[in-house]
């Protein structure tokens, strides 16, 4: 069963979870055998920007040991064979230069969405 994970919100609880929980979930089900790919849409296209570096959270005398490394997590997903794509219209809307994107990302357009969705058995939107 082929699954497309569409991720739209970004930076939701990523600091406390030290990851994006949907990217994490995707890696987890891929580990369980799922043929799952990712489409970054809406604000989540921001995850594809190269050079993200989340500062460690400090609260009182508490300091975070492992801030989220979303770019790294996406890279691992791509390295594992997942197709990770991003909607060009959403990148452009947010003024994100295509030269500033991580390696291995597939750029897709809204026009291509029906065809893309048609290639998967399940489409789960987050």
């Amino acid at each position, binding site marked *: 069963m082929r699954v497309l994970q*569409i991720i*739209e919100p970004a930076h939701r609880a990523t600091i406390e979870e030290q990851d994006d929980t949907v990217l994490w979930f995707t890696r987890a089900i891929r580990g369980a055998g799922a043929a799952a790919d990712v489409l970054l849409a*809406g604000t989540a296209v921001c995850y594809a920007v190269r050079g993200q570096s989340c500062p460690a959270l400090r609260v009182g005398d508490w300091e975070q040991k492992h801030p989220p490394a979303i770019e790294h997590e996406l890279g691992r997903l791509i390295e594992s064979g997942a197709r990770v794509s991003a909607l060009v219209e959403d990148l452009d809307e947010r003024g994100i230069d295509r030269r500033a994107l991580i390696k291995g990302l597939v750029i897709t357009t*809204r*026009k291509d*969405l*029906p065809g893309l*969705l*048609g290639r*998967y*058995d*399940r*489409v*789960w*939107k987050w």
Partner: protein
Amino acid sequence: MKRFLIVESRDPFEAASFAARNGLHVALAGDAEVTVFLVENAVLAARAAVAAIVLGGLRAAGVQVLADEFALQERGIAAGQLAAGVEAASLDRLVVELGRGAKAIWC
């Protein structure tokens, strides 16, 4: 034929993405059977007074538009106030559509 079942829960007047998704649903309807099931605040799109703008060309594209009767009643939208082509439905109908194996996407 391919089938898509979109459960739309977002407030169309708050979520800027609502209109963009409508565009996708119209495009999907080009070669698939598409049902949009409005739930929660998304049923606000079903009022006749605004549906033409908010629901765009869904009906013209052959998209079946259903609205959760529970949510309609909760918001005081009576049957007579529904846009033409929007049908009030119970969640039993949603279950039936899920049972038909449509690609189900909750928005």
